């Protein structure tokens, strides 16, 4: 049973890991800096020659799921992106639990809209400090344990039907601040580039529920303990690859 709970949390955290580390096509296309503002506005500033408010469309994949952003350049070192991500992950029979011979399904269903600002402190290095917030319209992680064999307790045998089933849900719905780092330069020089993000949302305190049927019904009383245990599980790491298209 411990594995079930851990796995659906891991599912949240790493459901699309292995992103990041890409090439920045734009990095190979350095452009000359403005002589008088090179330290602060490497690409010029509003009202100065050479600056223009750029826009890109991003499709991303990562631990906050699949989604898209629209990024807008306010200043040469300050941009903002607004977008949404969804994480529909269903993992049937990934694990077995020790307590019951059972089928276990894990389902993660996160949907967020977010607004994040990116600031480039080191000019042309491509490193961005990202901060903002997301609103998790859905933030549910659900594990369902369905015994599929009889279990024997002393001389009493309970059929799988008599055992019933148990569904554990944790919901992080609500507003979540975001802080992170961005890698590689935004806004493709040509048509397309790839960037990466590494950061974390600080989710609302989760609300947990345990719904159980049959002989497992008393486990609903474990909900308070489960919610207390999960109260610190509020960091949602974001590891994400962004596929950016110049508009």
């Amino acid at each position, binding site marked *: *049973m*411990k594995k079930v*709970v*851990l796995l659906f*949390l891991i599912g949240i*955290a790493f459901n699309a890991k292995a992103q990041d580390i890409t090439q920045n096509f734009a990095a190979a296309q350095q452009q000359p800096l403005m002589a008088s503002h090179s330290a602060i506005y490497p690409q010029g500033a509003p009202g100065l020659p050479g600056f223009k408010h750029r826009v890109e469309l991003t499709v991303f994949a990562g631990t906050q799921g699949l989604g898209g952003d629209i990024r807008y350049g306010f200043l040469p070192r300050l941009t903002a992106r607004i977008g949404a991500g969804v994480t529909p992950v269903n993992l049937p029979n990934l694990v077995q639990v*020790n*307590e019951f011979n059972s089928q276990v399904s894990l389902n993660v269903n996160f949907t967020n809209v977010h607004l994040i600002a990116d600031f480039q402190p*080191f000019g042309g*290095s491509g*490193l961005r400090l990202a901060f903002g917030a997301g609103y998790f319209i859905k933030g549910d992680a659900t594990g369902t344990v369905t015994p599929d064999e009889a*279990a*024997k*307790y*002393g*001389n*009493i*045998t*309970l059929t799988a039907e*008599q*055992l019933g089933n148990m569904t554990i849900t944790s919901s992080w719905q609500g507003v979540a601040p975001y802080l*992170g*780092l961005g*890698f590689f330069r935004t806004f493709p020089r040509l048509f397309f580039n790839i960037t990466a993000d*590494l*950061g*974390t949302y600080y989710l609302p305190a989760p609300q947990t529920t345990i719904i159980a049927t*049959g*002989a*497992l*019904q*008393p*486990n609903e*009383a*474990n909900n308070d*303990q*489960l919610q207390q*245990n*999960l109260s*610190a*599980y*509020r*960091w949602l*790491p974001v590891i994400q690859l962004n596929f950016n298209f110049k508009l």
Partner: protein
Amino acid sequence: MKPNYSIFKLTVFFILVALLFNNCKKPTDGITWTVDASVFKSPVLIQFENANSKSTTALPASFTVQITGQNADQVIMAAGGTDFTVMNGFLPLALVSTAKPSASNPVIFNVYASIPGFAPVSQTFSVTNDTLPVSHVLFAVEYASPPDGTSYTDQHDGLTNGVSGAVTISNPTVGSMTETSVITIPSGTQMLDGSGNLIPASDLESKVIHFGTGTQGSLLSFPGGFNPVDVSYNGQALHNVTFKTGGFLSINMVAGSTPVKNFSKPITVTSELNSSLINPLTNQPVQIGDSIPIWSMNEQTGQWKFEGNAAVAQSLTSTNKAVSFQASHLSCWNIDWWGTPCGSTLTVRVHIPSPAGFRPQYEMVLVDANEQYLGGLYTDNTWGTVETLYDGMVTVIPTLPNIGKVKLIVYTRRGDPTSKIAETALFAPCTQGTIDITINPPAPPQLVNVHLNVHGTCTNKNVIVNVTTWVYLYKLNAAWWDWIIVPVVNGQADLQLEQGAKYFVVTYYGGWYVTEGTFDKNNTNFPAQNGLQGTATYNAATNQVTADLGFNLTCQ
């Protein structure tokens, strides 16, 4: 290089923060998964006791019983399995999950026990409710020490190749037993086994217990109870009958080592009647010329069979009246008026004005005008013995004998007529409908509310099993009546115990588990004596002690 170094540090920092905060506590810390193992229906606890509470002879620590009757296949041990073994006097039974007992379609089975040194015990049960726990005491009559109000004779006579000479077996008066009985075996009678074959033995041992009607101790041992559910009357099967007894005899004979079940010639049984016996048909003391039905019982199936009527006559040896009848086979022979129960029920409203919240375990019985025991407070169609009573309690007696006048009496101690604490006026049971009874108990000891959590702990899994069973609590160094039995359903039970008193706590779940401890306003450990252990914690706000008691269980 410097920017790259900063990026590396920041990256590591974020990962560490995320992992650190997400793993400071495991999601399953402090959680034990629980299973309700209540898959069976209708818990029925049968407690075997020596009918003579003053006897120092204990029942064997374990013995097996036979479950027979029309629905025997629906009976199972409460902890599973069909090894019907009584341990330390307790036989916790239940019905299989597919059973569907109801008032119109009761589940009927019989429990039969042959216990060395005791008369055979037989009781038929009719279960009409699929959830209500029912406890019942079966009284085993010890040959060497039968209860007051009975007499016992053990006699040896010679046989010639299984053929008897003229034999007379007499049961005398003794103590409160004022009725005698005489059994005569005519000369030339062959002793036959259950198949009707001659038993070629040279010795006949006869054990005869005569149960009088003058004491509750005797009547509590009445085999099968006074509301039999399996009766054959002139070939007609009856399932709802009430008996008003004039006495009964348990006759067991062994030729050599073979039980005698039949005779080639009928034997004659003469039984005196108690001088206070009331004929329920006339509501007057029994008169010469009255007719009383005679019944025999197949102890192994629990079925009663009508054998004929006997006329009341004057005893030849005392001022008592007597009946005589002939018996061609052996079993229990019973002198009983019978009738169809009232079609109505009786609602009993219990009042205990003070102290508030007091829930004593007293005996409430139904008696006739002569205070002859007719039965205990029903919890089902069976007869309970001791019930937990409380102010405001409303209970329904579903089956009532259709006789003229009865009343309810409450005793503080089962079977002890000196402990009467409350009674109603006489009333007509079939038309009364509702009756109130008020009990004014003596000041009880300081009590504490107790909530029990009883569970089995899987030794190989992080699972506890809420069991459905019974818990028996016996106060150390107390009188024999100072015990409580409570049903535990899905591991839960509530009761009141004497604050500060030390109790043995016993439960049975495929094994026998014991601990002892004190229920008071301190947190207490209950160390394992025989596999049962736990803790008790006191909550001042609710004035309740919660005791978590567990035993190890093998789970697969």
